[in-house]
């Protein structure tokens, strides 16, 4: 018997000429919570695929529970007690909870026919393992991400898991749900189940992990006890550069007109009696749980929803925002949280994506585009925002998440904006790119742009905004300057009932 569930030494994996893993080590003790961190493309997914038997390594040694596996199949990995919970959770949205829980087991045991009774028994056993209460006959598509995650976890436990690998489990769930997830993880730990927790978030690593391993470009850059980590070390191991956040300092100019003012704005099932103002060059953070009305509020400013009653003033002038067109006309730019689905045309070129909102203006008579002008402006913004790309003619989907996010920003910055709204700007973005985005937003604000940032990440809001409001059940429950606030009390306001 070994003390380690996983001992990987000098694992190498090449794809063509690319070294995805260039001799990395990863050791996970039994029953420990181990954090694996690194930026996109550092080899995290590759090592997960090696441990789960989907990739055969090109070099190195892999030991599971003291047994060496030179060549391992996914079935052997599962038999050895390894379970992976992928970021997309691998659930079937169109099937019921019961089927999602039972199908894998039934398939593995070679069953050819469906027995609802057996399905139900398996499903009941699965949810009982983590005391998860859920309607087994509900379709999974009707559930929240957090519930889907618990389904994936219960499903993993059915196979007598000894190690559960969770690939960025906290990116799509709220703080409260993260807390619930951590309780589940601690429970699993008591049952001597090890967890490999992939995350970029230092506070989470501190809270849950005992040890950590960090990769950069397919190599180990750091490993040790989580208690020894500091923010500086963590980001340095991940990015290879020193990142120092500068707090955002805002000074209101006396007599300056408010850029945006909301008076008693209401939307049925969205928000009520919202009074809010935004000065020139301010960065305002809005936080609150999912379903607090924060997204609905900014969508109403942008014209995606039409407010039922109340008044909106832009630079002191009363305006009507009934449609997205009105929103854009009034200089309101909106960068949605799921830029992939809402903000970009993935197969289209970067140039088209950045310039689309200006086409009307740059088209000559007969609708022929002034290509030279477009290229000039686009290249200018690519440089200003430090977007890493090969050519602006390349399709958008060749870029990384962070760079795509910057392109969406560029699209709005080309217009003369009054207010830029960023909804969850750093969800799923690498720590380096995240830093770049915030530095950029701060420099834009310093030049007079007013910005609204919506985020779950309270430390992020505290260090990048000058003012913050907390929403709950469609109402603003707390408003104030960030320098007077602390993380714990803000979080309290968001959840208090």
């Amino acid at each position, binding site marked *: 018997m070994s003390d380690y569930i996983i001992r990987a030494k000098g694992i190498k994996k090449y794809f063509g000429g690319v070294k995805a893993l260039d001799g990395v080590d990863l050791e996970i003790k039994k029953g420990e919570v181990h954090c694996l961190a690194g930026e996109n493309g550092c080899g995290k997914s590759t090592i997960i695929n090696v441990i789960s038997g989907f990739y055969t390594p090109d070099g190195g040694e892999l030991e599971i529970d003291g047994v060496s596996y030179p060549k391992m199949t996914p079935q052997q990995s599962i038999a050895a007690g390894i379970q992976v919970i*992928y970021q997309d959770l*691998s659930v*079937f949205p*169109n*099937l019921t909870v019961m089927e999602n829980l039972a*199908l894998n087991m039934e398939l593995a045991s070679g069953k*050819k026919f*469906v027995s609802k009774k057996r399905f139900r028994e398996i499903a009941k056993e699965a949810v009982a393992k983590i005391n998860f209460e859920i309607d087994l006959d509900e379709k999974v598509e009707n559930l929240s991400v957090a519930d889907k995650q618990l389904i994936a976890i219960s499903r993993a436990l059915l196979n007598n898991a000894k190690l559960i690998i969770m690939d960025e489990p906290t990116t799509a769930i709220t703080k409260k749900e993260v807390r619930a997830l951590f309780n589940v993880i601690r429970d699993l730990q008591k049952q001597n189940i090890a967890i490999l927790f992939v995350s970029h978030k230092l506070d989470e690593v501190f809270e849950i992990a005992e040890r950590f391993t960090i990769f950069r470009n397919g190599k180990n850059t750091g490993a040790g006890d989580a208690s020894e980590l500091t923010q500086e070390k963590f980001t340095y191991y991940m990015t290879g550069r020193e990142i120092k956040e500068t707090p955002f300092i805002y000074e209101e100019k006396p007599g300056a007109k408010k850029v945006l003012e909301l008076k008693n704005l209401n939307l049925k*099932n969205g*928000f009520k009696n919202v009074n809010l103002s935004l000065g020139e060059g301010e960065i305002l953070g809005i936080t609150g749980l999912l379903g607090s009305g924060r997204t609905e509020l900014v969508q109403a400013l942008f014209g995606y929803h039409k407010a039922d009653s109340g008044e909106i003033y832009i630079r002191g002038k009363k305006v009507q925002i009934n449609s997205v067109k009105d929103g854009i006309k009034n200089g309101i730019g909106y960068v949605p949280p799921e830029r992939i689905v809402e903000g970009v045309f993935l197969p289209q070129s970067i140039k088209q994506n950045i310039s689309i909102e200006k086409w009307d203006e740059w088209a000559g008579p007969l609708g022929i585009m002034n290509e030279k002008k477009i290229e000039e402006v686009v290249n200018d913004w690519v440089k200003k925002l430090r977007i890493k790309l090969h050519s602006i003619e390349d399709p958008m989907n060749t870029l990384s998440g962070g760079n795509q996010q910057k392109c969406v920003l560029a699209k709005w910055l080309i217009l003369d904006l009054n207010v830029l709204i960023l909804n969850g700007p750093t969800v799923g973005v690498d720590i380096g790119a995240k830093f770049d985005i915030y530095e950029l937003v701060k420099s834009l604000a310093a030049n007079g742009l007013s910005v609204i940032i919506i985020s779950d990440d309270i430390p992020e809001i505290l260090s990048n905004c000058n003012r913050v409001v907390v929403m709950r059940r469609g109402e603003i429950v707390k408003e104030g300057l960030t320098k007077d606030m602390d993380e714990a009390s803000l979080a309290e306001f968001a959840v208090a009932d």
Partner: protein
Amino acid sequence: MNNKTKKILHSSEFYVGIIIILFCMLIQVRSGQFFTGNNLVDIIRSFTIPVMFCVGELMVLISGGVDCSFPAIASLSMFVVCKYLEDVTTNPLLFFVVAALIGLAFGVLNGVIIGKYRFPALIVTLGTSSICWGVMQGVFQSREYPLCATLLAVGKAKLFTATNAETGLSSDLPMITIFMVLLLLLGWFILNKTMLGRGIYAIGGDIIAAKRAGFNVFGTTVFIYAFSGMMAGIIGVFRACMLQAVHPNNLEGLEMTAIAACVLGGVSITGGKGTVLQACLGMALLTVVSNSLILLGISTHWQNVVTGLIIIAGTAATAIQNQKNAKKLAVKLTES
């Protein structure tokens, strides 16, 4: 209201069912001829062949694909067996077996190409379809052709005859209807009671998750298209039996009717959702409409227009409902 009634009230089956009943009532009130034995038998007769095609199409749609090749496969299989087997055998079973094998071959071709290379099913099956029509016309010199005695007998075999006392018109309910019922039951059984069937839903829901869960995605894909092709071969011969003649181009365009019927009944065109009952109801609605407009005194030329309008209205209703759901706000505001 308990959960079960709520679910029924929100299901598309419920609404399509109501619309069918309302439509039937309307025709009955206007013509007095709808609920007569011979009219009902006539409707079942024209429902039989298309609904059988729906079973294969349904499986393909659930898996996230689409099959446009079954009318061509059915026509080719039908023409080849009718032309070349009439002098060889008088055993009707042999006709169906050979037709099934021809259909199976083309279905496997579809399935392998789509399953292995993940090419878009629409294009692949359009290609196969074109090849089948071409081969039938070029290699086998297809034309209208008298049906051999063996198959004439299969077509004439009936369960009973319904006669309208008032008009003196009568219609036979063919034995083939039994096969229709069996095929629908088989489709239901595969989809609901076998792991293979759950695999079809799983693939339509999330193909990567299906692979990770251990479903044989390639094998299942081949099965779906092979099943559709094989059934197409058999149904093609049934069609000739019911028409009492070999009309090689009679089935052209039926792929769109089958897809429309499925979607109208509530089957998702993007995969993952659909039941045999939904496909049946969709096809029943289309059949009732196109068969009964004549009773209302609407000319046959307008039938296609009305059918088209129903398809658009039906799919629009579902699409609008989905859009509404997607944009619905659900923030729980504080009570004032």
